[in-house]
């Protein structure tokens, strides 16, 4: 169900509107404009609020454009807003998110693409069973698995410490969170790659086998280059998904390594004296900026990406 054909390029199928100002057309565009207002309102309000000074907010209204534009709230949100005595704003969360994002995306996609490849072309006994469990796992509420995963990460960290002889902690570190993202991204990504590789013409695979190419050879030399489009989809899916995560960030990291979403919630909800709504809204916009840029830059690929990943919730 995830490979929903999202064929937006196809032509609209409705009846062709004949004249410009028919009552039908007025209704049509009227409704669309009203709907567009509802969707745009929050973005607009965020924007204007973040550009106002506090007095203007207190006495003005949320919809009024700023009389005096100030970028102070943005500067404050990025570099000065406080949680406790740490007053370095969201910038720290931003870099944490980047540090979490890059390895999580790379590792989860690497593992899942190999999974999908093995599941579609190198089926072994039980592989379908594991795959079914994996897909089923996508629907298990995270809350069911969170606590045991805390324990698993602790044990794994202790195990690794024993093996390497240095103190390694997975719980609370960025790497613990990377593992968690890899695990929970696996069902959807694996499904995505499995379906893609399954659609590869079988002759290609068989020919390579006859030539004596092995598992990794076929993967790297034939499949990988062919699968670039699906990799892009997977990257978009993972980047937005991981950037927007809050629950895992709260549970598996600590204040030093908080991702941006968690820090945003902290900044907005830690009040010193008066609530600075303009700073809050600037912080909110800053946090939303990365996925928004991806959305606007990647266009239709974004839709394919999220359509593939929506099962993840």
């Amino acid at each position: 169900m995830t490979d929903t054909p999202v064929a937006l390029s196809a032509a609209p199928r409705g009846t062709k509107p004949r004249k410009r100002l028919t009552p039908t057309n007025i209704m049509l565009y009227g409704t669309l404009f009203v709907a567009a207002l509802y969707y745009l309102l929050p973005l607009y309000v965020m924007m204007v609020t973040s550009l106002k000074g506090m007095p203007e907010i207190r006495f003005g209204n949320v919809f009024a454009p700023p009389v005096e534009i100030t970028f102070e709230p943005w500067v404050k949100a990025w570099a000065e807003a406080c949680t406790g005595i740490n007053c370095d704003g969201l910038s720290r969360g931003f870099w944490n998110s980047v540090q979490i994002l890059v390895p999580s995306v790379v590792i989860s996609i690497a593992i899942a693409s190999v999974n999908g490849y093995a599941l579609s072309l190198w089926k072994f006994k039980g592989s379908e069973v594991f795959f079914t469990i994996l897909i089923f796992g996508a629907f298990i509420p995270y809350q069911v698995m969170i606590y045991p995963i805390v324990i698993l990460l602790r044990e794994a960290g202790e195990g690794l410490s024993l093996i390497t002889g240095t103190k390694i902690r997975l719980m609370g570190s960025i790497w613990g969170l990377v593992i968690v993202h890899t695990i929970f991204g696996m069902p959807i990504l694996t499904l995505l790659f499995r379906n893609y590789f399954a659609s590869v013409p079988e002759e290609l695979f068989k020919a390579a086998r006859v030539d004596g190419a092995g598992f990794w050879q076929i993967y790297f030399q034939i499949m990988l280059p062919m699968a670039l489009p699906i990799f892009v989809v997977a990257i978009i899916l993972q980047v937005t998904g991981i950037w927007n995560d809050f629950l895992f960030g709260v549970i598996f990291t600590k204040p030093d390594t908080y991702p941006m979403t968690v820090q945003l919630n902290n900044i907005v909800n830690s009040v010193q004296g008066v609530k600075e709504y303009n700073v809050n809204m600037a912080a909110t916009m800053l946090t939303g900026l990365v996925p928004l840029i991806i959305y606007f830059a990647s266009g239709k690929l974004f839709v394919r990406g999220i359509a593939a990943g929506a099962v993840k919730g």
Partner: protein
Amino acid sequence: MNLYKATTAAIAFCAAGAVSAADLEVTHWWTSGGEAAAVAEFAKAFDATGNNWVDGAIAGSGGTARPIIVSRIIGGDPMHATQLNHGRQAEELIEAGLMLDLTDVATAEGWADTVNPTSLLDSCTVDGKIYCAPVNIHSWQWIWLSHQAYADAGVDVPSNWDEFVASAPALEAAGKIPLAMGQQAWQSSGAFGVINVAVGGPDLWNKINVNKDADAAAGPEMAKVFEAAAAARAMAANSKVQDWNQATNLVITGQAGGQVMGDWAQGEFQVAGQVAGQDYTCLPGLGVNEIISTGGDAFYFPKQDDPEIEAAQKELAKLLLSPEVQVNFNLKKGSLPVRGDIDLTAANDCMKKGLEILASGNILQSGDQVLSADTSTQIEDLMVEFWNDPSYSAADAQAKYAEIIADAD
């Protein structure tokens, strides 16, 4: 190797930080203006020993912060020191051997003689060993009254709870909120506790919270308490703020008559430049029974394998209770020091009142000391619903309350 480690640890400990310079990550949930200023005192003092305080502030109330703290300790990534409310919150962590034993520091520093009241140290003690360093006493038993609000309404500033209730209509007529309340669960539960002590008396409170007497919780005396709470709820109906310091701000700016809140509210008045007795009045025990509840904050030190860190942890524990740090910290925080032997001449009127009551021994244990986290959160859930839902009758809430007490462990 072990001998080497042990020796370095011993040296480091004796040399009191001059040798070891460790980074200690300290988690706490002191993030409001006054609180942040207070915690900076700890950081400054600790940095001065050559060590480094790495601040791990967690925004939000203890309810948000505690889970993060506990899951990190359980998850094998303990911080080096952490704030918790002393009492039963860390019980299981101590029993599981995850916390550092501070008995040697306590003995060397003579905590047993200086910490007052001694129940604070008892709350840190499990099987005769001391596991936490209490840093302050926070009493919930206060109401803070805005002089401006009462002046605007043309009535005298009340001197006890009954007068406060009586003056509510006048405030309302003047467009003020009689009682400012934040809407978070711990605030609802705390305010109820204060009303409980004031209206029902300390004995009733002890019977229910210490002895878990469910009959008393369901009894007629307690019914009066619930009626009083329901009346308070009506007075706070227009107070639509979330955070406690926003509610305090309503009092500071004269939009609300008063707020039932612990003495940490004082820090906010101080930051706003208000003077006790002149701009605001504080009534301990709601002006009914002058009493101090001895809850508060303590620092726990999760066990680490590194002797250097352990030395720094003990160094910090020692420092937290040192007279100078106690004075600086508690003045900023608006809380009472845990030592009976220090001079707080700089204290303002409200703190002095508190100190007098403390010296007179009119004290009560805090909910954190006597109730398990599970029971406390059940009561919080009940209270936050009660305070925010005017249709929840006092009798229904009392019945539910008695059930919780009956199940309490």
